[in-house]
């Protein structure tokens, strides 16, 4: 990750922050979410707010936008202490936020989305549509977006929705713009466009708070940084004065280079062969093999067709043209049930939404994909279900009062364990993990990586779809890079480097 050479020089003398948090404390029942934190946002500068999950970043955003009120400390706008009792107060003070998933209205027009709540009125007090559309067009042009203001938001792509959100931020003449993981859903090209836009906003003298997990972005775009850890302020300064590892050290409070487990699995015979996979709109010419004990990484930009390919392989979507061989025998996989039956399981990206059934007890969650084994002619055998569930929850070291408790009563981490136990209980041959560490903190990531290595060591064949280069490099025996629905490269050994991955993924 290259440091941006063109980091702006800080203006002569220390400028005053437009917006500052001073010793802000926020307590939730029994929990101190923020403890005397400070943060300053300066005109024409981008401040990156950095911290692990649970460091208190989102609480700060909610305090800055008037959704939460702090229990102690002061919010200062241009040096004056203010209170943001409501979201409207914060908006009136010129603070606006662009969220990870934009908070916009699909069924309204672009112009209405931009001006919702402060639409221009005519002399009868009714919305002045022509002025609104004209102004919307001006603002959109200002952010370099070719969007027709009268179109429904629903018809726009995710990147254009972001532009509308930004246009909305500009329409209320915001002086402070908060961007909460704005690149999470964007493609490489769209991210570049976002960077340009941020540069434009900077040039207009706006103060920007940029929240991101990605260091390359932070070093590309930020002028300053502030680091939180466990709800406490750890440090701040100019980004040009620090390195990536300095920031990581501050975030986790210890010296961690991302360490990946040593892999010592025996790579065995071929277990999965995919040939000639074709899909009318999503991917083409896909062929690869997978061996026992191997971790095969799938790298690519968002939208390269990796998840679509895996879902087709697992029988979730329409089966593709092509041949799937498992253990040398051709298998037809038309549904997830076929895939599971043939020893292929898929752990989706959103494990909360797509994995856990919170109203069912733990043991029923674990046995759900294995019911054919724990039942006889459609009748359940509860004793066998408990046995299976006990065996696999124990292997994952799950601590729960009883396997009969509802899954929803467990903490997120424990629910995660149950979801993984569920898949292992099917005794799969091939396990597909889609973004296995997306959005989890560094500590939990290491645990997931170790577990993955262990599965491979036990002879399981693992497919890992990941967008994180360190993870791909650290975990995979072999990597397939996809670009625009096709396999761009298959890399292993010395060919594997961040540069080659990015080059093939971007088609440079």
């Amino acid at each position: 990750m290259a440091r941006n050479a063109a980091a702006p020089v800080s203006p002569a003398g220390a400028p005053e922050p437009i917006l500052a948090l001073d010793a802000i404390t926020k307590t939730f029942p029994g929990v101190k979410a923020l403890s005397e934190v400070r943060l300053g946002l300066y005109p024409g500068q981008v401040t990156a707010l950095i911290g692990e999950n649970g460091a208190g970043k989102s609480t700060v955003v909610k305090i800055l936008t008037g959704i939460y009120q702090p229990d102690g400390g002061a919010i200062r706008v241009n040096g004056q202490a203010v209170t943001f009792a409501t979201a409207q107060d914060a908006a009136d003070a010129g603070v606006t936020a662009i969220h990870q998933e934009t908070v916009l209205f699909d069924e309204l027009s672009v112009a209405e989305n931009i001006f919702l709540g402060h639409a221009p009125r005519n002399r009868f007090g009714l919305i002045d549509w022509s002025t609104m559309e004209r102004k919307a067009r001006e603002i959109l042009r200002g952010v370099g977006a070719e969007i027709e203001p009268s179109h429904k938001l629903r018809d726009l792509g995710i990147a254009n929705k972001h532009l509308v959100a930004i246009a909305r931020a500009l329409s209320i003449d915001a002086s402070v713009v908060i961007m909460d993981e704005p690149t999470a859903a964007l493609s490489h090209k769209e991210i570049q466009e976002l960077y340009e836009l941020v540069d434009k906003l900077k040039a207009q003298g706006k103060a920007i708070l940029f929240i991101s997990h990605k260091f390359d972005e932070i070093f590309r775009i930020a002028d300053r940084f502030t680091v939180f850890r466990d709800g406490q302020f750890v440090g701040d300064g100019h980004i040009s004065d620090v390195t990536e590892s300095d920031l990581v050290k501050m975030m986790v409070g210890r010296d961690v280079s991302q360490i990946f487990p040593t892999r010592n699995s025996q790579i065995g015979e071929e277990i999965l062969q995919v040939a000639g996979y074709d899909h009318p709109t999503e991917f083409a010419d896909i062929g690869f093999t997978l061996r026992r004990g191997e971790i095969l990484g799938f790298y690519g930009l968002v939208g390269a067709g990796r998840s679509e390919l895996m879902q087709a392989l697992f029988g979730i979507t329409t089966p593709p043209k092509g041949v799937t061989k498992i253990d040398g025998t051709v298998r037809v996989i038309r549904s997830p049930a076929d895939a599971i039956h043939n020893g292929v399981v898929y752990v989706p990206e959103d494990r909360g939404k797509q994995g856990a059934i919170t109203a069912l007890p733990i043991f029923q969650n674990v046995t759900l994909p294995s019911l054919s084994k724990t039942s006889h002619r459609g009748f359940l055998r509860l004793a066998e279900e408990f046995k299976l569930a006990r065996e696999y929850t124990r292997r994952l070291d799950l601590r729960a009062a009883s396997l009969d408790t509802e899954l929803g009563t467990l903490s997120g981490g424990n629910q995660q364990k149950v979801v993984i136990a569920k898949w292992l209980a099917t005794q799969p041959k091939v396990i597909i993990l889609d973004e296995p560490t997306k959005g989890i903190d560094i500590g939990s990531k290491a645990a997931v990586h170790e577990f993955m290595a262990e599965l491979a060591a036990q002879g399981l064949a693992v497919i890992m779809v990941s967008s994180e280069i360190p993870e791909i490099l650290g975990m995979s025996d072999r990597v397939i890079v996809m670009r625009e629905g096709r396999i761009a490269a298959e890399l292993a050994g010395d060919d594997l480097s961040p540069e080659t991955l990015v080059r093939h993924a971007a088609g440079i």
Partner: protein
Amino acid sequence: MLKRLLASREVILLGAIGVLLALIATRFPGFVTPANLAGVFNDTSPLILLAVGQMIVILTKCIDLSVAANLALTGMVVSMINVAAPGLPIVVILLVAVGLGTALGMINGLLVWKLAIPPIVVTLGTMTIFRGMIFLLSDGKWVNSHEMSDAFKAFPRAQVLGLPMLSWIAIAAVILFTLVMTRTTLGRAFYAVGGNPHAATYTGLNVGKTQFWAFAISGALAGLTGYLWVSRYAVSYVDIAGGFELDVVAACVIGGISIAGGIGTVGGALLGALFLGVIKNALPVVNISPFWQLAISGSAIIIAVAFNARANREKGRIILKSAEHTA
């Protein structure tokens, strides 16, 4: 374990029914005699049968508004068969009723499964279509008591071990479907599909097909109830059980079945139906006007939903490590 049992929705509802009966007993002791309670149960049996089917449908995140129309259509068909062939044994009538009801339920299920039309729209449509079909079949004429054979009318009233057949059928359905829901893979699939359809898909369940079977069961029970209804009341016409589908949904909601799917038991549906049954039967006895009956049933629904919403409210996410063990 005991604490959990005492806090369960079913036990609370049972307690509420007990309190209700005690209150009625202070005004009218005769109401709580075993004979009268058995009468109330028998009266509520059709509601119980339909509520059990509806419960399964609601469990899978669907709703079946066509149950009462299915009941009426099946009831009319079996009445007309009885008129045309009075000698046909009751077993055949029962098979026709269950078979036709199932087929009608399967139409709902297929539309939901294959065409992915929202269940409320599908069953609103079929509800109207079924009623229309009764009119076409009967030309709007009634099938009256004197046209039905004695055997046809006697079946639901036949006394077995002190209870009428109608009551026994309701009891049998409750037992059968308790077993289906707790002891079979199909029952487990209903819970999984309603609890989290995405997760169910990834575990190899076919969500649409599971919903199809829920509609088939609901239809089968509606068809069975159709025969029992027309034979018990000894009359069949276009509008029988008009609006009854709302009572059925109400019984489910009162019985703690989550409209969002995935939560509910056969026992809950039974108790919800009994609660409504007790109110309907008791209020006239203690001289409360029928308008108040509606208001009280309505209030019971809202209280039950509010209560369940409270119980199911998400506790929020535990984010801080330090809070993990205290929560």
